């Protein structure tokens, strides 16, 4: 393999990984945008999406199974918010973050009992396990294009929702100043439920599109959440577009680290760069400097 196409191949491998991180990272942003909370159970929503879709695909066509999984996971997200957050007397960020960590463990255990410890996956949306698109001597699985397409569509829809719809604006208002939002007649608890439901739905969708590549099992959530979280921080929290850029950068960094270093160090290299960036720009690559305003777009 000549060096040009080899470099391109590394880049495409990085894009494959990065697209997975990006699609997970988007989910982190929405709850953060509405509540200022980092939801550490986001990885579990991804896992649930894959699991539900794999179960449904035995009975219905693939697109219906994916849609069904998104609806189910969205429902789970809303339900969790109503059960665990609505009754909280004080909605301090720390309280809510700790609850999300607890939920993450509970969801994993429940998934283990509903399904089992086995690995499963959805079929490739187009082609199969060996098909790949070739250009300039490098290859990429068509499924990666599905992931990137999903990322692009959700980011655009999210931007439109948050910027131009009443609900979206209300959601942002809750985050920037809850008291003022309440005085303006916005039902803050309902907005929080909506944001949990939406991020769960996004997580569920992510779980479906990445399932053919990464496969789905009950413990997949935590490592994915860590990488997605890193991507979201790297890009700058609160901005879905930045999360996507962050995810792709982390993925490509890892891939090129593998080309120069032993593969065991790829995470080290990626996280070292991430730390360096955060030293210089604590608000992330594309985040805004002003503390609270970071959550606005």
């Amino acid at each position, binding site marked *: *393999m000549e060096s040009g196409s*080899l470099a391109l*191949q*590394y880049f*495409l*491998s*990085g894009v*494959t*990984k990065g697209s*997975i991180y990006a699609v997970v990272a988007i989910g982190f942003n929405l709850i953060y945008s509405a509540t200022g909370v980092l939801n550490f159970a986001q990885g579990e929503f991804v896992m649930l999406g894959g699991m539900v879709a794999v179960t449904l695909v035995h009975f219905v066509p693939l697109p219906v199974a994916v849609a069904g999984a998104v609806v189910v996971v969205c429902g789970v997200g809303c339900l969790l918010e109503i059960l665990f957050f609505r009754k909280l007397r004080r909605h301090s960020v720390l309280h809510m973050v700790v609850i999300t960590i607890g939920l993450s463990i509970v969801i994993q255990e429940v998934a*283990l009992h509903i399904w*089992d*410890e*086995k*690995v*499963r*996956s959805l079929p490739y949306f187009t082609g*199969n*396990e*060996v*098909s*790949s698109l*070739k250009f300039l001597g490098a*290859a*990429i*699985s068509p499924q990666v294009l599905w992931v990137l397409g999903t990322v692009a569509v959700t980011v655009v829809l999210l931007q439109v929702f948050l910027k131009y719809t009443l609900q979206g604006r209300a959601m942002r208002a809750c985050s920037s100043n809850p008291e003022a939002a309440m005085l303006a007649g916005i039902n803050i608890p309902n907005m929080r439920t909506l944001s949990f439901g939406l991020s769960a739905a996004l997580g569920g969708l992510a779980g479906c599109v*990445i399932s053919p*590549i*990464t*496969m789905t*099992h009950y*413990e*997949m959530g935590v*490592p*994915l959440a860590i990488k997605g979280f890193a991507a979201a921080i790297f890009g700058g929290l609160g901005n879905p577009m930045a999360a996507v850029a962050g995810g792709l950068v982390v993925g490509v960094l*890892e*891939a090129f680290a*593998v*080309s120069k270093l*032993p*593969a*065991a160090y*790829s*995470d080290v290299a990626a996280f070292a760069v991430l730390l360096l960036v955060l030293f210089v720009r604590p608000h992330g690559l594309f985040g805004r400097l002003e503390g609270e305003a970071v959550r606005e777009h």
Partner: protein
Amino acid sequence: MKRILLVVAGACWLGALSSVLNCPAAEETKPIKIGAIFSVTGPASFLGAPEAKTAKMLVDQINAKGGVLGRKLELVLKDSGGSSEKAVSFAKQLIEEDKVLAIIGPSTSGETMAIKSLCEENKMILISCAAADAIVNPLARYVFKTPQKDSQAATWIYHTMKGKGISKIAVLTGNDGFGASGKKQLEDLAKTEGIEILADEVYDKQATDLADVLTKVKGTPGVQAVVNWSIVPAQSIVAKNMRQLGMNIPLFQSHGFGNPKYVEQAGVAAEGTLFPAGRLLVVDELADSHPQKKVLAAYKKDYESTYKEPVSTFGGHAYDALMIVVEAIKNAGTPDREKVRDAIENLKGFVGTAGLFNYSATDHTGLDLGAFEMLTVKDGKFTIYRK
């Protein structure tokens, strides 16, 4: 004086009581307790779950037929979740509280090494279902194991490569105990077998995609085959990524690939994958005269009809561990731990799922190279590899 009398009377009464409790009739009707530590949940659940299911099924079967030496078996099953710390505390519990005759398991090499010396000190028989050579080397008097050794798997891979004229390879291993052990065996044996390792990479066991690592292999000139050694789902990812990148060199996997689930997950990408494994996966291809045929066919039929899932070699390791204890109790004629241990060490020609076991005072694995067969994947099914 009165007080002394009272003490003496008390002592007599206690003595009488304990002799009643210890009377042989009561002892003979109590079930024989066998401890089991498996990682039924957690990252190694694909090992522990079929092992636990197998052990439960066998104990029920044996008890339905009247037990061993006229006594029922009682399985005291503990789920370690793959954690060495839990394995240690469960082992202590089984030794001190449950006072079991023997412990079967744990599922992973890491957990086994964590309790090896504990069992040895307490003179507790341990029959591990994990593969690492370190479990029986150095030899511990009370510690045995049932799976084939990693070094035997590596030897099989290298012999097959030489038959295909391959001498320059890339080695990929997962960053867990199994991968580390395999990496060491592959590197050590490469020198004596005349194989040159051109690329040697370790990847994260939770990797979601390995196209970058395989790009590196593809970019390394002269590589004739890839060996991947892991027990994690990455086994399927490696197969998929290789084919997606258009690599057509052979892929060898370790005996950890012996799980139909991974073939299913890799789909057509798994076709032609070569790996050493016991004969359980290809029982239908064995001649009726093969010494293991009867045992393997019966276990496969029982397991699959009981649990409605395909049998895996890992469950077979638990089958071997439990049946070896049962066989040794029969041979010893008494559930006395010392005598049972001696009976295990003297076991010859015992037909298990992994092969023919011949334990001795110097060999606590009991299996030779013939316990493995080189398998390949054809049309999504395991089949014996023929040149």
